[in-house]
């Protein structure tokens, strides 16, 4: 082995090579960013358009559809979703993973600008943002103090919010629960009628009296003076003096018609922290930006904002997602350290000597640190996946060094000097070590390049494992033999039953191992004599694993305990903010009884949510400080809060890579709302009656009660009014109209003209609203027409929002799960929805996590098949044999039973994470077979008979096989135990790998020698594919050996 020889001869050179890797690795480590998961963000662009006062159906037809049609032409779109609700249209464009979000947003902006002229004139300009409005805020701040709510809100809106919005990576900052200052002109409807005026007259009068127009320059000799008309209001009291009209020459002031109030905008949102009201700021990040980096930048900005903050105001961070990310990343780092230490202890137990233990242990930090170079070069982050790769690989990284050092040690035991042993042992074992490493790489490369979101997710995982094991191979061929040749001592190998307790313990451990090794020799001999029994046993065990698999549930990703959960509150349609707040308060009271609850953050009407929708974030004490898991606490809360009337509640944990919606989502699509409602109703009924589905919700929501004004067009036309005039007048009276802006202290505030509250509460009030006709009465007075003369006012109900998916109307039925896994519930639901009679053009589909799970499992199975093929390719190439890889690869099915059994015992499900663990096993379990077959071949080359070679190879390689297996098992133990924050997410992988390793190691020790001998026999027989394959291999092998032997003098 050239590399090892060079390293042994040039120790300084070898040390410096490894040193260079370590230095570069450390340099890269400090530069790596922290994140929760790899960047798997789907590029989202959201277009939000506000059309005040418009109903959902009008928004859909006049705004949403037009925007959908326009943006549909942008390249790289995956899906277009939209929500049309009262006064607002939200179009969410989901792009393919490879599309660059910034570029996509620009194209969307251009397309919408092109159709701007076709949209209603009174819309506010569409806002295009690069974020998913369904995502949770990464940070929530609350501002409180000894001032009025209006003052705090003003300061928050004008000073704090803009500064936070400027932080790179921030998608949006929503102010929730403030009292925004507004000058309100509350018009008395009776007085308006008495003076024969309309609300339009008031609006016109108020806006015309508040102007400041530059009038040019006045030149006075050599001087030039600026001329301005000072028509702006300077105090709120000025409004009362405005002359609205002069009917019949009589001056009507605003004070005659209305009262002017320096008040606050009607509240549409609310924030409450632990029962106390505050002004909240929900901060959402842009798609693709790093949560921790954005949170850090926000904190820095907050420090600057805090420095200038008035003494009586306080900013509190109520939610900070970066804390959990840091905690969970730190916990994975601890898993790596504990796993590494356990693996080193295993090595020490077997080698019973510090020197070889230290030499092999050096491979661990070296390989991990050197992996950071590639992670940095490929722009990876320190996230749960990349660190999980290292924590699972920690037992692997020491393997190559263990195998090499064990062989060196064995050679020394047989009489070689350390130098000679290092050279000979590395050369002897080199192929086997390379083969084990390359099979691991062969398994992880298909994983890294899986398509879809899961492929993205595991890309960093696969590459990190591959790089780290390749570095460990390099270390095993350079640093390990070099140090062994220089540092090992002949006398080190002596271990006697004397000395301290540790020495004697080690002696007994190794003594027992030697006895076991001798018994194993006899067991192999027995197996080789009873080949049929062994083969039959292997087949039975393999079939048993499939049988056991039926008892495993399936889910997309395991839920992780992030020490918090969310309750979404959907109050009854038509509920006011006060009613929703009351429902939330009752929930908060019930939650506060739980000692595990630390903080309750309630927001109502956040972002684009209506006042009927609230969100309660329940923060818990850290996982290690409580006995109940987040799921158990959520179930308890669900049971207790079932009695809370007036709201539909949804309980869910913080979203993982599967998204932040509910776990089970069924989508009914079609065009006609009535038929779609029928289909959705049937699906809802199915989901509700399926065991395990809880918090079932229909996205259509129960219709919001509405008052409809049905205009008689002929009558209206006859009386000199048109539909548009009626609509705008009614809107101005009820919703109000911002007539002008009032300026004070450099800030501008809306001046809203509307009817006083008493005049706009009952249906009768609507009937009495008057619209000014264009027809003249005598004395040039205009006719005032009551609404009831030209329209019939009726009550009805309409959808409070209309959802669309890929330009088709959609109703979603979503649910959370309790006590059952997604795969099971989905199986039941799908079986029943398949029996629904659907009209052409209507469909019911699984979406969300269910859809992703099906797609991902398919991709993973494909990767599994590819991994097996690659393992064969690597082994065949390494061993120069078409047939022997089969003997080695028989360990693969033997690992399945252990993995399935371990998952069953630990109560874990078959998820993307555990399935990747099973794929990982394909690379790990071949190692035992490689070590065995490789040495059997060496011994046969040296002239030993097959059976003797197999028995000797088995007993010789038992020690490295068990050492590496135990090192891997103990290295992964901290991951499998899942003790840290968010560890439930990663533990199933550790459990599957450990279970698989145990069974495959136990079984392959017997099965591989048997299958090796069967394949060998097939090669000696005539005919048959197996025989031809084996003969071909044997011929190659003979030719290769012949060439070498001819050089022997």
């Amino acid at each position, binding site marked *: 082995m050239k590399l090892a020889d060079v390293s042994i001869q040039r120790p300084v050179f070898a040390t410096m090579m490894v040193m260079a890797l370590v230095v570069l690795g450390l340099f890269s480590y400090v530069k790596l960013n922290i994140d929760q998961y790899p960047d798997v963000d789907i590029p989202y662009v959201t277009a939000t358009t506000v059309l005040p006062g418009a109903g959902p159906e009008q928004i859909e037809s006049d705004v949403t559809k037009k925007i959908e049609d326009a943006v549909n032409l942008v390249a790289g779109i995956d899906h277009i979703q939209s929500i049309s609700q009262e006064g607002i249209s939200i179009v969410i464009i989901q792009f393919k993973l490879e599309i660059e979000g910034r570029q996509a947003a620009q194209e969307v902006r251009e397309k919408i600008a092109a159709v701007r002229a076709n949209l209603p004139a009174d819309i506010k300009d569409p806002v295009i943002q690069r974020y998913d409005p369904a995502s949770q805020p990464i940070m929530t701040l609350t501002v409180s103090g000894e001032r009025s709510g209006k003052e705090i809100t003003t300061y928050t809106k004008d000073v704090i919010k803009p500064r936070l919005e400027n932080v790179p990576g921030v998608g949006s900052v929503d102010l929730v629960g403030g009292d925004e200052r507004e000058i309100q002109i509350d018009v008395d409807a009776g007085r308006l009628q008495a003076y024969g005026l309309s609300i339009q007259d008031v609006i016109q009068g108020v806006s015309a009296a508040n102007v400041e127009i530059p009038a040019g320059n006045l030149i006075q000799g050599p001087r030039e003076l600026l001329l301005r008309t000072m028509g702006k209001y300077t105090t709120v009291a000025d409004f009362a003096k405005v002359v609205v009209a002069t009917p019949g020459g009589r001056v009507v002031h605003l004070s005659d018609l209305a009262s002017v109030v320096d008040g606050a905008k009607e509240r549409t949102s609310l924030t409450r922290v632990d029962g106390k009201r505050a002004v909240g700021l929900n901060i959402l990040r842009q798609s693709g930006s790093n949560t921790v980096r954005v949170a850090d930048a926000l904190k820095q900005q907050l420090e600057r904002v805090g420095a200038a903050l008035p003494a009586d105001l306080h900013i509190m961070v109520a939610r900070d997602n970066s804390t959990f990310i840091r905690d969970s990343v730190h916990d994975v780092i601890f898993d790596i350290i504990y796993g590494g230490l356990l693996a080193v202890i295993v090595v020490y137990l077997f080698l019973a000597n510090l020197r070889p233990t230290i030499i092999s242990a050096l491979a661990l930090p070296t390989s991990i640190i050197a992996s950071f170079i590639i992670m940095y070069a490929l722009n990876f982050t320190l996230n749960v996946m990349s660190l999980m790769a290292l924590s699972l690989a920690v037992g692997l990284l020491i393997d190559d060094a263990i195998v090499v050092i064990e062989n060196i040690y064995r050679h020394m035991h047989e009489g070689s*000097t350390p130098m000679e042993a290092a050279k000979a042992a590395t050369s002897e074992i080199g192929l086997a070590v390379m083969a084990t490493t390359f099979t691991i790489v062969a398994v992880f490369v298909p994983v890294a390049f899986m398509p879809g979101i899961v492929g993205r997710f595991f890309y960093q995982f696969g590459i990190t494992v591959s790089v780290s094991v390749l570095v460990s191979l390099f270390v095993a061929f350079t640093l390990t033999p070099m140090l062994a040749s220089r540092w090992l001592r002949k006398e080190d190998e002596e271990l006697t039953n004397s000395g301290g307790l540790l020495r004697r313990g080690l002696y007994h451990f190794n003594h027992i191992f030697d006895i076991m090794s001798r018994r194993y020799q006899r067991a192999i001999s027995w197996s080789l004599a009873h080949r049929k029994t062994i083969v039959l046993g292997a087949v039975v065990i393999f079939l048993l694993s499939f049988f056991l698999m039926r008892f495993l549930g399936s889910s997309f990703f395991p839920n992780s305990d992030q020490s918090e959960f969310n309750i979404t509150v959907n109050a009854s349609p038509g509920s006011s903010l006060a009613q929703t707040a009351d429902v939330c308060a009752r929930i908060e009271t019930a939650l506060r009884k739980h000692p595990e609850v630390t903080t309750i953050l309630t927001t109502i009407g956040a972002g684009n949510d209506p006042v009927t929708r609230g969100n309660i974030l329940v923060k818990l004490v850290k996982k290690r400080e409580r006995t109940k898991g987040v799921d158990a606490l959520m179930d308890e809360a669900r049971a207790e809060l079932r009695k809370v009337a007036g709201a539909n509640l949804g309980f869910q944990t913080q979203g993982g890579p599967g998204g932040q919606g509910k776990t089970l989502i069924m989508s009914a699509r079609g065009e006609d709302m009535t038929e779609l409602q029928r289909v959705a109703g049937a699906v809802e009924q199915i989901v509700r009656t399926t065991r395990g589905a809880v918090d079932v919700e229909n996205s259509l929501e129960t219709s919001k009660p509405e008052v409809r004004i049905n205009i008689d067009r002929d009558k209206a036309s006859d009386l000199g009014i048109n539909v548009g005039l009626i609509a705008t007048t009614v809107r101005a009276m009820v919703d109000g109209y911002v007539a002008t802006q009032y300026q004070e202290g450099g800030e501008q505030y809306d001046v809203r003209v509307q009817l006083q509250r008493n005049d706009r509460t009952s249906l009768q009030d609507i009937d009495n609203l008057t619209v000014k006709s264009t027809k003249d009465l005598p004395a040039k007075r205009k006719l005032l027409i009551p609404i009831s003369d030209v329209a019939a006012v009726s009550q009805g109900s309409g959808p409070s929002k209309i959802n669309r998916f890929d330009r088709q109307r959609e109703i979603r039925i979503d649910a959370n799960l309790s006590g059952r896994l997604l795969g099971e519930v989905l199986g039941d639901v799908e079986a029943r929805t398949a029996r629904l009679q659907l009209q052409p053009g209507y469909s019911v589909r699984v979406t969300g996590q269910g859809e992703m799970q099906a797609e991902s499992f398919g991709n993973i199975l494909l990767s599994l098949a590819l991994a097996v093929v690659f393992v064969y390719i690597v082994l065949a190439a390494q061993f120069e044999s078409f047939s022997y890889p089969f003997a080695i690869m028989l360990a693969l099915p033997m690992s399945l039973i252990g993995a399935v059994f371990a998952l069953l015992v630990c109560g874990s499900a078959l998820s993307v994470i555990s399935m990747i663990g099973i794929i990982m096993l394909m690379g790990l379990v071949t190692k035992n077979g490689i070590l065995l077959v490789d040495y059997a071949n060496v011994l046969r080359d040296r002239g030993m008979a097959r059976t003797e070679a197999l028995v000797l190879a088995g007993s010789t390689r038992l020690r490295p096989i068990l050492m590496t297996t135990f090192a891997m098992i103990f290295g992964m133990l901290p991951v499998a135990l899942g003790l840290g924050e968010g560890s439930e997410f990663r533990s199933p992988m550790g459990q599957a790998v450990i279970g698989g390793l145990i069974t495959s190691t136990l079984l392959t020790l017997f099965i591989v020698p048997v299958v090796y001998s069967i394949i060998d026999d097939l090669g000696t027989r005539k005919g048959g594919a197996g025989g031809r394959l084996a003969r071909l291999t044997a011929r190659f092998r003979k030719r290769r050996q012949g060439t070498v032997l001819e050089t022997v003098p």
Partner: protein
Amino acid sequence: MKIVFIVCNEVYSHRVMDLLAKNKIDYYTRWEEVAGKGHGTEPHLGTRSFPGLNTVLMIAIEDESILGCLTTNIREANSEIVRPGDRIRMFQIPLDSIL
């Protein structure tokens, strides 16, 4: 006057060179990475099955006393090598003349 062939496992090359230096022998011909098998020893073929290679040195020694010292030193070195098959071999052949 003798010609001496020293054949040893390559890991002992340095030790042999040290012995030559000790005896002030700074003249030799050396072949490295030579495959071979000794009588009753394991083959050193540089393969995975038979790892290890040999080094061969050819030295023409005119002074019999130097040869004697070298022989003694090699015997002493061999006494420290545990496995008989790994011991340094020294072959002496009479040499008629050196041009």
